[in-house]
């Protein structure tokens, strides 16, 4: 199982850069970048904060996929 996401899609639709989203969420740009590329699995708190700042719910942003 792997955690897939559509953070990049929702972020670009909202007209935000990685740096702008990172500043809103209170993390570094690397964190947003690695979450988007599915390199880093965010904590529950970070996933919920990302969803809140992007105006969506966490299930829309993240879901589980079979390997």
């Amino acid at each position, binding site marked *: 199982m792997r955690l897939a996401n559509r953070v990049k899609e929702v972020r670009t639709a909202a007209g935000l850069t990685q740096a702008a989203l990172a*500043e809103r969420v*209170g*993390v*570094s740009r690397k*964190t947003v970048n690695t979450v988007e590329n599915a390199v*880093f699995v*965010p904590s529950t708190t*970070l996933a919920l904060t990302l969803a809140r700042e992007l105006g969506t719910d966490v299930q829309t942003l993240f879901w589980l996929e079979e390997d």
Partner: protein
Amino acid sequence: MDMTVDKIVTVRIASMGAAGLICLAYGLALLSGERLPGGTWLPGVAGLSAAALVFLASWAGGRQRARAAADETYRQDWRRAQQHSYWVALALFSTLTIPVAFDMIPGAMALGAGGLLSAAALLLLSAIYDFRGR
């Protein structure tokens, strides 16, 4: 100067990397019997300077940016650097017992070099992992 999150991270990577390289150079010099300029205190000063620089950069950026620069990705990178440098240190000290056992180098030299190279491993791995993915 406006100290952004990216700038705090850059200061951290540069200062940890520089301190790591100094520890590496002095550790290798100690083993090979060469004398490097600055004396044996330089690696310690480099480590303390790196800590001071990171502190000053974080302080200049403010609490919010400092927290963002030390977020969960950084904490994961730091833990990974600690895990890997632990095994490097074990391998180093185990390997260095061989020349000590055969009286090729004194025990104090092996201990000093092992300490410096272990510190170099932690600092350099931390800088490398921090840099990756940026």
